[in-house]
């Protein structure tokens, strides 16, 4: 199992004796941990270092003498006390272990030859190490139907279950989704779901990883490989920007499984299911193994030399001001740097944006004093949460926040237009009207509160939240995009409001795309250069790169607007799919149609490429390129190459270097490491993150970049028109399983996306006489769409929700992209029964 030795700091030492040796333990620490650190590993099944001990399995019995004579005690339930003498290997202990195993095996089937766990099974291993060679139990074992699905992805074989309570504890304690529970009693006890309510947790895959037997298996891996056939390397999940550490396991050049690694500052061994099963996309039949060129209206396979020549000549012939690059958050740090140089120096355009109108300006991410996940979750702290629903967008961050609030007394003041996964455990949960977040945030720190409230939030809620924040030392703020139907400026104003009230506050940017932070650090944003340099203050990049763009370019919205007006001759889509990702699908479509040459660099033919690309350069995907990535908190970790890309697909950085070469610039780059060395050399913030430093044992959890940003200046506040009392304000947010390119290529996850509906609160639904399931007509400035209504309590009056990218782009999809107009501060809609 992917367990790292735990490092602890001993602040309050207690001396104990373990197998005759004196050992210094931390007061209050569990004996099982102290023994393990002293080199005396105690076998166990139910104990898991990231969950409360329960003493279910009794495998960890050791003989303990606290002065009253030796007695067998479960070491996972016993905190160390001074002078404790412990025997972990004696005859009594061995007999106890042997006995416990004999009991556990009484009802355990002899399934090893057909069990996925065989070869990495704690029950198997510990039976061999500590158990009886033979069973005295000749009676019939208990029988159940062999595996039953308890969710879309997880199967339960109750005969194999040893009732350790790990999965059920995880579901309740860690995930907060107690949809599995022990049922029945005594020998009949089993793990059960309620009829008709499957274990549909976003975190269900973790139970498969922690089950100490083969009782829980995950569909994507069942019968795929034997543990001894797997090759593995440690890497970082790029399903989102949390940066969970994983082991990538493969067999015969195919990635078959991810297992979570216990990275203390990040994921504590947990993964979300989207990330865990996301490897399926890489194995998809639809992966591009060769470049494509449009020929007579169709994309057809081409030779690399032809495709690269086509791309290079389009770039060479174009006026730099008419070239734009969108995307880049999918790439490795090295790929981003290579493309930043190609775009900004070799081609010379500053119309470059890694975000697609769904993020925050680079200043918010890079130029504010930063906070890490650990700092945000530090016990006893206060957090102002202005991010998206973390359960839907940054799932493992959600687990960390949940743990902080539930176990570590962290007070979360959650501000979001509609209820989120945090609502359940936030100390305060307020829902301002869309577009008015900044007004509310300002009111949370002072000023008069009118009796009818602020921004739609009742006065007493404002005051209660203010009370929580007023005592806060060291305020931590999490900020992201909560609503794609309002402009990003709303969140920038909210940040400015916090800064005005609490200048010492530190910020964790909660943007979803995997390496979006890396992209901004590499300069893939208008006006930016790598290492937080800007066009105005380019630092060493001017010399390193030679030429730089003359003036600050356009962001994604500007690029698409210019393209739609026929002012972009070459549009590079760097793993970007504006048609699915940009909130205003109409503008994206017009832009793609009117742009000159469209070059897509992608592992797939995404919707935008299918519509408009003239050249598609087949890119290598996760697990196929070694390099580094940067998480939302600014942590640089390594990415491993575990398999080779399909066909002749190439690493993104290589494509940029190759194109630069064809455009006459020798970038002096032969390997990805050369690129990273350039980054580390040119950026003070990256100084500690060299390839050598990342390889150092001390940095197994990666290296944090400097988080001392200070350049943020508050822009002029956005004007939000008052709400028309006949209309609702639209919130467009994301759900974990949407129709994104990668997810649609994951057979296990794709069916989990929910249906696209218009979500309303009860009061508004009643006023137009609709209930869940009723058809409704949604009229906005640009278009009218029809949808089915869902009525839930979590949406406040005056607000309605559509989910981003759940519908296909056809004419009658329930697609917010058809009504959201880029650049508008808010989106007003009228909803009628239809």
């Amino acid at each position, binding site marked *: 199992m992917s367990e790292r030795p735990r490092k602890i700091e001993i602040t309050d030492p207690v001396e104990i004796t373990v197998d005759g040796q004196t050992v210094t333990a931390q007061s*209050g620490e569990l004996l099982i941990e102290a023994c393990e650190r002293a080199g005396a590993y105690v076998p166990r099944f139910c104990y898991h270092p990231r969950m409360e001990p329960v003493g279910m399995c009794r495998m960890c019995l050791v003989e303990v003498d606290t002065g009253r004579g030796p007695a067998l005690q479960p070491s996972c339930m016993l905190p160390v006390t001074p002078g404790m003498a412990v025997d972990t290997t004696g005859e009594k202990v061995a007999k106890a272990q042997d006995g416990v195993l004999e009991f556990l095996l009484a009802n355990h089937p002899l399934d090893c030859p057909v069990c996925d766990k065989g070869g990495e099974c704690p029950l198997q291993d510990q039976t061999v190490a500590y158990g009886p060679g033979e069973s005295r139990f000749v009676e019939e074992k208990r029988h159940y139907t062999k595996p039953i699905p308890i969710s879309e992805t997880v199967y339960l074989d109750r005969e194999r279950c040893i009732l350790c309570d790990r999965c059920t504890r995880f579901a309740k304690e860690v995930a907060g989704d107690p949809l599995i*529970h022990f049922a*029945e*009693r005594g020998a009949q006890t089993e793990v059960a779901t*309620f009829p008709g*309510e499957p274990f549909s947790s976003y975190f269900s895959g973790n139970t498969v990883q922690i089950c100490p037997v083969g009782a829980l298996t995950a569909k994507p891996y069942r019968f795929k490989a034997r543990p001894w056939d797997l090759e593995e390397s440690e890497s970082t999940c790029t399903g989102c920007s949390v940066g969970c550490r994983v082991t990538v396991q493969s067999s015969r050049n195919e990635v078959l499984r991810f297992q979570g690694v216990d990275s203390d500052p990040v994921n504590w061994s947990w993964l979300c299911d989207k990330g865990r099963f996301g490897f399926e996309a890489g194995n998809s039949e639809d992966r591009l193994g060769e470049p494509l060129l449009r020929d007579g209206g169709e994309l057809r396979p081409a030779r690399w030399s032809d495709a690269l020549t086509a791309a290079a000549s389009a770039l060479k012939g174009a006026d730099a001001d008419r070239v734009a690059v969108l995307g880049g958050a999918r790439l490795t740090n090295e790929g981003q740097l290579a493309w930043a140089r190609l775009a900004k120096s070799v081609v010379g355009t500053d119309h470059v944006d890694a975000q697609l109108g769904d993020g925050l300006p680079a200043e918010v991410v890079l130029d504010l004093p930063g906070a890490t996940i650990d700092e945000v979750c530090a*016990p006893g702290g206060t957090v102002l949460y202005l991010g998206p629903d973390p359960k839907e967008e940054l799932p493992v961050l959600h687990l960390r926040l949940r743990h902080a609030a539930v176990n570590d*007394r962290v007070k979360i003041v959650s501000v979001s237009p509609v209820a989120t996964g945090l609502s359940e455990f936030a100390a305060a949960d307020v829902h301002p009207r869309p577009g008015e977040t900044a007004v509310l945030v300002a009111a949370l720190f002072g000023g008069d509160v009118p009796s009818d409230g602020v921004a739609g939030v009742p006065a007493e809620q404002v005051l209660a939240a203010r009370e929580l924040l007023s005592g806060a030392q060291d305020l931590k703020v999490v900020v992201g995009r909560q609503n794609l139907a309002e402009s990003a400026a709303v969140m920038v104003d909210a940040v400015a409001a916090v800064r005005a009230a609490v200048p010492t506050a530190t910020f964790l940017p909660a943007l979803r795309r995997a390496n979006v932070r890396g992209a901004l650090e590499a300069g893939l944003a208008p006006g930016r250069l790598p290492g937080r340099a800007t066009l105005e203050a380019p630092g060493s990049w001017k010399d390193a790169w030679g030429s730089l763009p003359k003036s600050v370019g356009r962001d994604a919205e500007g690029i698409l607007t210019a393209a739609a007006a026929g002012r972009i001759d070459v549009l590079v889509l760097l793993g970007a799919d504006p048609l699915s990702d940009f909130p205003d699908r109409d503008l994206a479509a017009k832009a793609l149609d009117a742009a000159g040459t469209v070059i897509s660099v992608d592992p797939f033919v995404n919707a935008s490429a299918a519509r408009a690309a003239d050249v598609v350069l087949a890119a290598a995907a996760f697990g196929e390129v070694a390099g580094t990535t940067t998480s939302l908190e600014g942590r640089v970790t390594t990415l491993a190459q575990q398999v080779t890309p399909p066909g002749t697909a190439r690493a993104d950085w290589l494509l940029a270097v190759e194109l630069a070469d064809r455009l006459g610039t020798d970038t002096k780059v032969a390997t990805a490491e050369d690129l990273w060395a350039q980054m580390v050399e040119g950026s003070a913030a990256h100084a500690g993150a060299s390839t050598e430093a990342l390889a150092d044992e001390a940095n197994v959890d990666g290296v944090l970049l400097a988080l001392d940003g200070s350049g943020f200046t508050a822009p002029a506040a956005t004007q939000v028109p008052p709400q028309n009392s006949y209309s609702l304000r639209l919130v467009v947010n994301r759900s974990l399983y949407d129709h994104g390119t990668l997810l649609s290529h994951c057979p296990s996850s794709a069916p989990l996306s929910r249906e696209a509906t218009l979500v309303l609160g009860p009061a508004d639904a009643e006023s137009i006489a609709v209930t869940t399931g009723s058809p409704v007509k949604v009229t906005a400035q640009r278009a009218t769409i029809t949808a089915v209504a869902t009525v839930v309590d979590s949406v406040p009056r005056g607000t309605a929700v559509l989910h981003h990218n759940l519908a296909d782009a056809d004419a009658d999809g329930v697609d917010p992209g058809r009504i959201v107009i880029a650049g508008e501060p808010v989106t007003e809609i009228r909803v009628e029964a239809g």
Partner: protein
Amino acid sequence: MARFSAANEQLARSIVSRYPLPKSATIPLCHLAQEQDGHLTDDAMGHIAELVGCTAAEVLGTASFYEMFKRHETGTYCVNVCTNISCLLLGGEELLEHAEQKLGVRPGGTTADGMFTLEDVECIAACTEAPALQVNYRYFHQITTDEFDQLVDDLRAGKLADEIPPHGTLGKVRQEIPADKVANITPPEQQTEPVWIARHRLAAEAAAPAEGGES
């Protein structure tokens, strides 16, 4: 009928309000549901979960631990025949066999008319009166096969309706607490933290890593 009726839902809410933590009302509400429907239905467990603020799986986990919550259709009369040691020695097995024939069902089964569910149970603590059985947990001592037949006929004819209410009924008289007799329990939302929970929290805070002091 499966979820609580309007009247029972109101009662359920008042039961929930008697406890400092809503989840503590799970078992009383399972009883109430069983009383309403004769057994504990899935829909009722779902409704209980909503009322006490947990998942249906948690209600199932609790309810399924207890033998007396029946999660399948159960007859109006649940007949438990003891076959544990005392009763076994004094004819319990024979009594059960006779009961099977008389009712025409195996243990665990329910008669077609929905009147009886027969069960083979372990000691019901009436060993001195073996062989013993229970009908809806009311005892019948030293039962002969003839007496068993008579008992079944009487139950069918409704002669014991006064003494033995239908399966699931908790008591014939519902405890209603008149307003002036209420023991002054503040509703949970107005309550301060219960002392034992506060104690637990304070202890946890005292043990927080920052302090880390030894006691």
